[in-house]
């Protein structure tokens, strides 16, 4: 019962945050509210006993990405900070996504259902081996680094590639040269 009350409370906060994200007109408050949104998501994950996911969400979603978004907004020229586009297409898109998800929800297994397909395939084996054979209490780490080690290697390479891409895009002089070139052409 407590679980349901806390979940209801958190999800209602999510609704309010989304409403204000749509309502507000300044980009910096959109960024701040998105940070609030992901932090509340992290609280929901803790409530669902997915502590690792919550940890990642809090650190990456509401920490680093909010900082990077604030930096990006701060770099915008003065006139563009409060300029927002017409929200109508995005509202239509998100409402249609919500309707599609609502239609699918009926087919999903109930929350915490032990007979759900995902709990019957390899998960029991992972939990048993991790505890008794490998003596690693955190099954999530074990799955992430050992059973799915190759996946995690791929994820690491994705992050590495993203870093390289941002470094190449932002610290090389190509962009400055281009803008200079355009200005010269205008003159």
């Amino acid at each position: 019962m407590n679980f349901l009350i806390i979940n209801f409370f958190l999800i209602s906060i999510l609704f309010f945050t989304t409403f204000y994200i749509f309502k507000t007109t300044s980009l910096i408050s959109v960024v701040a509210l998105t940070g609030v949104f992901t932090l509340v998501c992290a609280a929901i994950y803790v409530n669902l006993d997915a502590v690792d996911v919550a940890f990642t969400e809090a650190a990456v979603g509401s920490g680093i990405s909010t900082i990077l978004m604030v930096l990006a907004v701060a770099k915008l020229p003065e006139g563009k900070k409060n300029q927002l586009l017409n929200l109508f297409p995005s509202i239509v898109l998100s409402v249609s996504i919500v309707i599609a998800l609502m239609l699918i929800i009926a087919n999903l297994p109930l929350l915490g259902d032990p007979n759900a397909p995902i709990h019957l395939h390899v998960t029991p084996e992972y939990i048993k081996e991790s505890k008794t054979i490998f003596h690693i209490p955190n099954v999530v780490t074990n799955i992430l680094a050992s059973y799915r080690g190759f996946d995690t290697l791929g994820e690491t390479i994705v992050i590495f590639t993203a870093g390289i891409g941002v470094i190449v895009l932002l610290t090389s002089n190509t962009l400055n040269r281009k803008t200079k070139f355009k200005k010269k052409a205008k003159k």
Partner: protein
Amino acid sequence: MKDNFSSSPILNIVSRILFAPIIIFGLYVQFHGDYGPGGGFQAGVIIAAAFILYSMIFGIKKGETLVPIKINQYLMCSGVLLYAAVGIVSIFFNGNYLDYNVLASDRSTGQHIGIILVELGVGITVATVMIALYHSFASFRIKDD
């Protein structure tokens, strides 16, 4: 935007006090990943947060002397290479790629060693990539002179 906030005494002192504990907490999350929530990804982000706080408060110049760009880029690559190297080492011990069972005499120790090394690689890469992201975002200027 102002480039540094070190003139404000509150921010200055608080960030000085917080810098070391954030890194210690990051290391705890990194090496305690087998036993509690956490692991390379989260620890990397937490450690990067300490350095980002430093360069936010004391300016991007000081941040780049603390973590030079060259060293940061070398570490970025070395994290991925460490991860890949663990897999290759396990091939040399007659196992499959990334099979940690063969790294030590018994399965459990091998798994522990493998997971700690792999998570260390992930942590190094994530931390340095986040620092590099912040530094390149912060030193990026749209020239309109």
